[in-house]
């Protein structure tokens, strides 16, 4: 897989240059699609650190998008005298910290659950966070929270956020790549395959699971903070979304569960399908995502990566 790292590295570098230059030649609609693709890819990668590598598929990662976004908004409101350029870093720090604290707190109990129980319990976490945000006035979830414009005056905000998303997605890709090739990553994979056996071989399964959970939550929270800024105004409904909870799983399924680039491929494909191909048929999105999920489970459990592998094995 990583036997020829130089070509893969060059390929990625070329792709990054092309992607970064995107706003120079893309029409505005496609810049927005690009934003969504990069946002989704980043989220998919963050999700996969726990769901793909360690096999703990979460149904509730929108919890961290919401917690990150609302913390950032509330903290930034306290620091409104800061120069604009510092607002996003402050927000990112606050959002990441709150996600780290929340995930570290719930990691111990929730990671005792396995498989479907873990998945559903995470959905519960997401719903509880949403309700708390919505019903306690302090969080302003039902009223909504404003974010100051942070794009430099000379820069079109859409293009600016496109580049910010790209940077964040790359950061998350880098983290996943480092994890995948490390001892930690091998430990996570062995947990996914057979947790008891992994422990018998000396893998500190509990600590690894907790670490993966916190890393995944923090990276998701970072994406949430950027998302909130790009929207400019958020409510509970706009960040704690059940379709996000679902999409994160579909990205990995579509691209290839547990592979490094799987979530990226999946996110790009799904966003392309829903935004470009079905762009005008808003009523049809849910149906299409559902149909895709059914087809994937029945026909291509390995996703795109699985199909490629099968093809390579056949030739």
């Amino acid at each position, binding site marked *: 897989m990583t036997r020829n790292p130089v070509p893969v590295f060059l390929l990625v570098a070329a792709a990054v240059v092309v992607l970064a230059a995107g706003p120079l030649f893309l029409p505005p609609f496609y810049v927005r699609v690009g934003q969504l693709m990069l946002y989704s890819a980043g989220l998919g990668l963050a999700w996969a650190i726990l769901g793909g590598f360690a096999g703990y598929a979460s149904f509730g990662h929108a919890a961290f998008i919401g917690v990150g976004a609302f913390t950032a908004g509330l903290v930034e409101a306290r620091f409104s005298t800061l120069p604009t350029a510092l607002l996003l870093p402050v927000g990112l720090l606050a959002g990441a910290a709150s996600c780290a604290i929340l995930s570290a707190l719930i990691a111990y109990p929730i990671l005792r659950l396995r498989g479907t129980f873990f998945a559903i319990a995470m959905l519960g976490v997401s719903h509880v966070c949403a309700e708390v945000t919505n019903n306690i006035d302090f969080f302003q979830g039902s009223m909504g929270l404003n974010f100051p414009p942070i794009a430099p005056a000379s820069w079109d905000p859409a293009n600016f956020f496109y580049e910010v998303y790209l940077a964040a997605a790359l950061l998350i890709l880098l983290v996943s790549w480092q994890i995948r090739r490390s*001892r930690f990553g*091998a*430990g996570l994979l062995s947990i996914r*395959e057979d947790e*008891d056996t992994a*422990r018998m*071989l*000396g893998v500190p399964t509990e600590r690894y699971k907790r670490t993966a959970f916190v890393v995944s939550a923090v990276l998701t929270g970072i994406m949430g903070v950027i998302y909130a800024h790009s929207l400019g105004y958020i409510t509970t409904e706009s960040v704690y979304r059940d379709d996000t909870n679902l999409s994160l799983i579909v990205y990995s399924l579509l691209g290839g569960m*547990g592979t490094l680039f799987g979530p990226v491929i999946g996110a790009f494909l799904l966003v392309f399908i829903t935004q470009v191909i079905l762009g005008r048929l808003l009523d049809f999105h849910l149906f299409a995502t559902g149909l895709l999920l059914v087809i994937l489970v029945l026909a291509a459990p390995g996703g795109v990566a699985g199909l490629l592998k099968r093809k390579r094995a056949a030739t």
Partner: protein
Amino acid sequence: MSLLEVERLSKNFRGLAAISDVSFAIEAGTITSIIGPNGAGKSTMFNLITGYLPLTAGEIRYRALRITGMATNRIAALGIARAFQIARPFRDLTVFENVRVGALFGKAGPRDVEATTRRALELASLAALAEQPASSLTVGQLRHLEVARAIATRADLLLADEPCAGLNPTETAAMIDVLRQVRTNGVTVVLVEHDMPSVMEVSDRVLVLDAGRLIADGPPKTVATDPKVIAAYLGTPDAA
């Protein structure tokens, strides 16, 4: 000092005694077999030593260090490895990647990971299959994989749970060979085994469990003729 000391070990499952008051010690560099009829508590013994199950009473010491109550992964990190009877490979990983997990973790941590992995594969005669996915191996090969993965942890003590069960004579002979190789490499082996010819052939010493009690302990020849052991396997004349 013995490598492993088990002292007055007992384990109850809801009041039912699976192991009662068993003591023994394992000397470094030996191959010891634990035999006994079905339900005698052999696999439970392994589950207790590896910390997979909590024990009811007694103490287990490894290199004079008390390991009772330690987490499974810490015990593994001290140098006790286990090969399962029903092989539990990491199915989606290749043979090499499977063994590599053992080398990355286990005792002494990640030093010379690739070399350790290769050595373990050689030892278990799996080198030719290194790049195959584990899910494509035969039952016999999977047993070798279990041993290779355990050895790759650089364990000093290998607990092998019925490595020969269900294997044909050729495969059994190959497995016995592997276990001898393992011992030659300085690893102490404890086997749970049903296949009597293999036990007699490979073991330096045999422990016999019956209904959770240790009823015999000695060289294979002596144990095989022990009337208590024969009774345990065949039933006492008046009971039968």
